[in-house]
């Protein structure tokens, strides 16, 4: 499997990663190498193997449905760049 420069740009955009123009070809090569390894693993017969969802062989612990958190808005908003009327303010986003 081989990634193009376009694929790399798109993936970088989806992950909101800024990458330099001159590095794109190298990323494409490296990432393609990783995907080739995946393809190679894909050739193994795994028909009798349960897919692993988590490396720990344990089950999720559940918590009781109780409200334990108190309002710490002031504390949290102390590190926010901008707030108003209790809201976090961010650059305008519209669908």
């Amino acid at each position, binding site marked *: 499997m081989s990634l193009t420069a376009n694929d790399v740009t*798109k993936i970088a*955009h*989806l*992950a*909101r990663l800024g990458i330099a123009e001159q590095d794109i070809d190298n990323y494409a090569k490296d990432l393609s190498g990783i995907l080739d390894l995946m393809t190679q693993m894909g050739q193994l017969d795994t028909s009798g193997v349960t*897919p692993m*969802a*988590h490396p*720990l062989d*344990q*089950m*999720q*612990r*559940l*918590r*009781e*449905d*109780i*409200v*334990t*958190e108190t*309002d*710490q*808005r002031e504390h*949290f*908003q102390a590190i926010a760049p*901008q707030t*108003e*009327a*209790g*809201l*976090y*303010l*961010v*650059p*305008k*986003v*519209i*669908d």
Partner: protein
Amino acid sequence: MNSQWEAVIGLEIHTQLSTKSKIFSGASTAYGAEPNTQACAVDLGLPGVLPVLNQDAVRKAVTFGLAIDAEIAPHSVFARKNYFYPDLPKGYQISQFELPIVGNGHLDIEVDGVEKRIGITRAHLEEDAGKSLHEDFHGLTGIDLNRAGTPLLEIVSEPDMRSAKEAVAYMRKLHELVRYLEICDGNMQEGSFRCDANVSVRPKGQKEFGTRAEIKNINSFRFVEKAINYEIERQIDLIEGGGKVVQETRLYDANKDETRSMRSKEEANDYRYFPDPDLLPVLIEESLKAEIRATLPELPVAKKQRFLDQYGLDDESASTLTSSRELADFYEAVVKASGGEAKLAGNWMTGDVLGALNKASLEIAACPVSAERLAGLLKRIADNTISGKIAKQVFDKLWNGTATADEIIAQEGLKQITDTGAIEAIVDKVIAANPVPVEQYLSGKDKALMALVGQIMKETQGKANPGEVNKMLMEKLRKP
């Protein structure tokens, strides 16, 4: 719809599960709090926090699965759905992808007297996002994360519906069910029950589906029907005009009654799901399923059938009275307190009581007339203490006051006149005073009798039994 075309509709419905705390944190889920006062470090996605799953959210999901006859996954896995939006602080939503907690199930709907089974593909647990407020912040967007982390059960149907009417019927059934199960409050204004619709059209007889458009966030039954109908017409017009439907997300504008393109999904669909390493697989033991199954309430279909059998109600009344658990419980309390006046109670509930509630925009839980007080009234109708007409007056007084029916009847002297001598005197008086209608009646005009009955009822202030009066009058006029 043009009869050469067939619509294919599937719904994705997000129900907020009515837990006290969030799905992965101990912050409150109560609606309407001051912005960001119920958003804790986990909901904000601060570094170093770990989500811990709420057992009640799991139980509610299992409850739903059992109620729709679905497979409950013994192992289910949480995944990250990656996208960037400021009301999603982590940059991903914790959801389920490959192994949802609820698998294949179904729900039966009825449209125009025809039953139809709608498949439910899956239902999965996920966290809700926060809210973005785009107004009034001098070009900036305000973010309230109180809703972030509220547990959702996303219920995905098969593309089994063929008209907007079927889609609405399915949505209503589902709404009724989640409220019966008490897993969701169903409050659509507050966004507890939200619907996205996938709509496509194809020539009748064609097997393959057409390209579908997804209509987002249509939040009332009425708008779902309108939005889907608009979208079906739009797609047919487009294709008949030589165009092609593109796969996209569209937003329904209720003011203009139209759908419009929101964004093409070229990149939005690339969510790059992967299992969330912060959460271990969820194990649902057989014992938990059995325990929940044992506590399932009587479901709407079974309850309606029982109401038909046990109370002898007609189909429509049984449907109406079982449309919510609260209403059904109220009805049964009335029947019990009235000593088994099932049909009378059914008539009053579906007529006067629901009418008055509608008029006052009240739910049955806030009905000013309790089941006991209503039953007190029904007893007096049943034993002929008061006539049906007087009963309506008494009901008004029950509604607007605190007295019992017996107290009202005694205070206002509304008791039906049972003294035949007294009624007879009034009948004679009315006959004597109204020679014209009497003459008309005697010459074959049956309707004239009604005028006389009306006069007598007026004289007795409605306290005579109209049936009795009718009988007496006819007897008297037969032998002048």
